């Protein structure tokens, strides 16, 4: 895509209310994650004084039962959640798009083989598979978790991209490129992919949110990173130690809200962009 059309698309995108609101929230959360260490003097996993303190100027979100500062935990957890979303989403998008392109463009046996693989992965309950894989790894970091999530969540993307590629490959300009001596790879990258850029971008946003949700799920059942902190782990701990029942609402609700906010903003950007790229969805 040329620079002119990119700025034009951006201009159109930011006229859309959902895109504006979603991006604003997302930007705020990114900023919070980036500036977090500056905003709080406490390490997320260091004893800071008294346990179970309610929110106060010293501890904006209070402390938990171990005396950790919940605000710094949330901020550091947000960082790891965004990292998981980005890495896991990128891996899933990359694999899905690659397999979709190759299957859709090549057709025949290649297509059959790749689609069998895709469908097998599609019908295996992903969470169960994630649990099994995660349980086998004695040490798990954020990156490992992202890779596991990325490797298991590409099938829908692959199917959708394949369908789009199938439609595009019979277009005249693709046939012209074939007659012009272009290699299959050059045709996929030069003719087909640029026509799907907006779609791939939206897929990435969707995968980003999906990876975060998957990670929270894994963390929550205790199969998250073995070291470090994440939003899911905070929730897991909070539930494990009966935070709500004991009245420590500040331990569970703010991190949960941050997750909800993050996913909602991604969802809003996604549906907003959908309206931008597909004028028929616009309400006016």
């Amino acid at each position, binding site marked *: *895509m*040329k620079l002119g059309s990119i700025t034009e698309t951006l201009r159109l995108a930011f006229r859309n209310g959902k895109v504006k609101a979603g991006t604003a929230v997302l930007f705020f959360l990114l900023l919070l994650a980036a500036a977090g260490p500056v905003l709080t003097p406490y390490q997320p996993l260091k004893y800071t004084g008294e346990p179970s303190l309610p929110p106060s100027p010293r501890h904006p979100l209070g402390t938990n039962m171990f005396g950790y500062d919940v605000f710094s935990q949330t901020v550091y957890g947000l960082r790891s959640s965004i990292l998981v979303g980005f890495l896991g989403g990128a891996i899933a998008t990359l694999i899905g798009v690659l397999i979709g392109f190759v299957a859709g463009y090549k057709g025949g046996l290649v297509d059959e083989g790749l689609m069998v693989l895709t469908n097998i992965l599609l019908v295996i309950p992903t969470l169960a598979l994630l649990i099994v894989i995660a349980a086998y790894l004695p040490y798990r970091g954020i990156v490992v978790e992202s890779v596991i999530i990325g490797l298991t969540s590409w099938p829908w993307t692959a199917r959708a991209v394949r369908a789009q590629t199938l439609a595009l490959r019979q*277009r*005249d*300009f693709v046939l*012209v*490129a074939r*007659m012009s*001596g272009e290699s299959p790879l050059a045709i996929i990258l030069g003719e087909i992919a640029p*026509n799907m850029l907006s779609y791939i971008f939206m897929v990435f946003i969707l995968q980003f949110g999906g990876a975060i949700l998957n990670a929270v799920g894994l963390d929550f059942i205790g199969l998250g990173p073995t070291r470090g902190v994440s939003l899911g782990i905070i929730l897991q701990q909070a539930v494990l130690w009966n935070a709500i029942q004991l009245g420590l609402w500040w331990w569970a609700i703010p991190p949960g809200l941050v997750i909800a906010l993050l996913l909602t903003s991604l969802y809003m950007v996604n549906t907003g962009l959908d309206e931008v790229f597909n004028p028929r969805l616009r309400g006016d």
Partner: protein
Amino acid sequence: MALLRLEDVTKVFRTGLFGGQEIRAVEDVTMEVKEGEIVSLVGESGSGKTTIARMILRFYRPTKGRIYYKGRDVWRLRGDEVKWYYSEVQGIFQDPYSSFNPIHRVERILYKTLHHFHPSLGGRGVEERIREAIERVGLHPGDVLGKYPHQLSGGQLQRLSIARALLVEPSLIIADEPVSMLDASTRIDVLNIFADLRDKEGLSVLMIGHDILLANYVSDRVVVLYKGNIVEEGPAKPVFVNPLHPYTGMLLESIPRLDKKWEKRLEEKAEEEEYTAYRLKGCRFAPRCPAARKICFEAKPPTLKLEERSVACWIYSDYGEKS
């Protein structure tokens, strides 16, 4: 020897749930294109003419039959042979707007084509060749270079399509309805480009279209197709002046004339259900044919050779030699 030869080429498309419906879009088509000759393949929509073009250009694989180019089976070419084939045979499509990728500048594909087929040209040579090709199709390089497809007219884009094909310096061009989306005033110009190249450089063209008048204007031979079957074939003039097959006659009758009020001469029956004709045992044109007899519905008409011409119709079953 013929430059291009189709032998009993058949293409079956399957439709419906689980591919239960069969449509023989092209059936046992045998035809030739000789060197330095423009052949028109004429037929209405659904006659299989675009399917034939796409089989020749290696986009659809024939269900049955062979396509030979310079004696080599087009569908058995591998690797570099495919590139050789495209350096000899090029195609032009009907819709100029969809022939160019909307997100790229139009000249991109011209540069790519030149890069792949004439890699030895230097930067200067490339620029020169592209300007030359653009001027050859009657455009000014300044008007079209650097533009996106949506900034150009259909006529300009179709000329650019032709310019791209010519950059390869092919021996054969498969032109699938190259003028049907152009203004009447520019059609003749585009056809003249082909005629000119045939006369000066011995280019062969297989021109596909539904307009028998335009076919007659530019071509040496005409092949008339109905629902995937060749019904008549021969030198353009005789076919035009004295059509043998009732369908060719009908095509000619349907040309509007300036000097005459419209009146139906032949008792013309509207087409019935779209796919029924494909399932007929006999002649596919029989349901619409004014001269249809009992046998027309029961058996395929034999193809009869009458001097340079051939026709597939039961009317002539008593004459000529069977092929």
